[in-house]
């Protein structure tokens, strides 16, 4: 009993807390960077890239979790790098160009993922890929905690330490420049750290939908938009939210439900609520 508690339950709870905190913090950072309350941390294609990388490994390399994770991480980083390179080819340096580049790269990797799923053996590979794309903490272990913590803790701390310039980045490129912010340099820093956090998370547990979008909004209700208060609140709420969602994922049915299904069931209606309430209060969107 104690062994199950220490070797399965405890690492799983720790992993959900840190991954929830990391993805949510990255979401808040991306929303500020792109001045878009609907921006999610996978806006630059990291999730699609990771999904493709994982599927590629499952299909052609090995079903070993470690290899799948490494491949997912590498392709997540490749996707964001390609989005950045594509955006840099444009003369327009506005964040919207970066978002469009992210959509393009995302679509390409998504198509690649769909093709692999189409080609996959439906009896073992396909199920593994589908389960991976919907995310799960059922393979949580101390090894995975060791893989997550060295990236997520420094990442969250860095984002919180350098959270004040994010306020200024929300004011638009030209206004931020006028106030003395080196916009391009800061954008690279925030995108790099956030992408590392998301790519690490996605490579370890698969896609965790919605959390990076909705948790920053809940935090904004509680702490306001000032990022020195917002980011710590987002990290705490993100950790708690994902821990609760994962508890539901493994306990509401006899077999475990993929985490993205649970977060989507709660996330999508909440977004609907935001859209309705935004018109009345203008507080969020």
């Amino acid at each position, binding site marked *: 009993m104690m062994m199950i508690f220490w070797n399965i339950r405890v690492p799983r709870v720790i992993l959900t807390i840190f991954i929830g905190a990391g993805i949510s913090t990255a979401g808040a950072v991306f929303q500020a960077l792109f001045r878009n*309350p609907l921006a999610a941390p996978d806006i630059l294609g990291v999730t699609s890239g990771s999904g493709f990388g994982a599927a590629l490994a499952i299909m052609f390399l090995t079903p070993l979790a470690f290899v799948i994770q490494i491949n997912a991480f590498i392709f997540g980083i490749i996707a964001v790098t390609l989005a950045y390179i594509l955006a840099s080819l444009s003369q327009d340096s506005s964040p919207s160009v970066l978002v469009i580049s992210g959509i393009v790269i995302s679509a390409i990797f998504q198509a690649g993922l769909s093709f692999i799923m189409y080609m996959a053996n439906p009896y073992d590979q396909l199920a593994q890929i589908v389960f991976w794309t919907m995310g799960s903490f059922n393979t949580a272990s101390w090894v995975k905690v060791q893989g997550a913590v060295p990236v997520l803790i420094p990442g969250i701390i860095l984002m919180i330490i350098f959270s004040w*310039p994010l*306020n200024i980045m929300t004011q638009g490129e030209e206004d931020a420049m006028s*106030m003395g912010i*080196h916009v391009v340099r800061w954008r690279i820093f925030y995108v790099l750290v956030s992408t590392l956090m998301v790519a690490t998370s996605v490579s370890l547990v698969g896609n965790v939908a919605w959390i990076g979008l909705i948790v920053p909004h809940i935090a904004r209700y509680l702490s*306001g*938009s000032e990022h*020195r208060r917002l980011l710590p609140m987002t990290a705490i709420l993100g950790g708690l939210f994902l821990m609760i969602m994962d508890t539901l994922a493994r306990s509401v049915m006899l077999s475990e439900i993929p985490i993205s299904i649970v977060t989507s069931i709660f996330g999508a209606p909440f977004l609907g609520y935001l859209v309705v309430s935004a018109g009345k209060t*203008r507080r969020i969107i």
Partner: protein
Amino acid sequence: MNLAIKNITTGYGKTPVISNISLTVGPGRICALMGRNGSGKTTLLRCINGVLPVFEGNIRVMGKEIQKLGRAQVARMISVVPQTHFSPFSFSCMDMVLMAGAARIKAWSAPSGKEKQKALETMAETGIDHMAKRPFNSLSGGERQLVMLARGLFQDTPVMLLDEPNSHLDFANQHKIMALMQQVTRKRNMTVVITLHDPNLAYYYCDDVILIHKGRVKAAGKTCTTLTNDVLSAVLGDNIQCDETKKGVFVVIPKHIPQKMN
């Protein structure tokens, strides 16, 4: 001279929009930039602020060449008040003003109590200190512009650029903003360059005026001597004339005023 621009040419991409423009503005003076839509007023402001590259010529603020300075150094010299402002997230007015301290405040730090006190004093200067905790996005257009003005003043620079700060304001607020600008410019002894469409506002509140037409300076000088029928017609079109009211007050009105219906 606080601001000295010499023969600058600038534009977008490789296409020049304004050519060979020179101007100097001393401390404690407001210079109006006037011209029709698309004449290059905003382009000139963006170039002065270092957002657009200088193709030719140079811009000096307090003797230092802007093109050779980093972003933070430019922000210590020049502040900008934009035409309109929308914040995607609802910050308090105090937070909005404090952002202008970015060039002084370390990125890993946060505004100190001293900075917050200074911000509050600046807000008092523009008469909005009572709004410090109110959400910026809940304010009216006029109140927002006062917050943006306070933000520009909090940046504490020798030069301030204002891009059509009155364009979305009602009559009373237009004069309120301009009177406030005149007052703080004298008090702080700073240099202000402001783009305007209304020659009356330029005449009453600005010391100097530069009229730009198709990217080139058409006329420049003191407002009281430069704003003449000939100059205004050449720059702003035929349908404009300078006149005087019965009380002898200078006004610029359309030449052809349609007859009233009643």
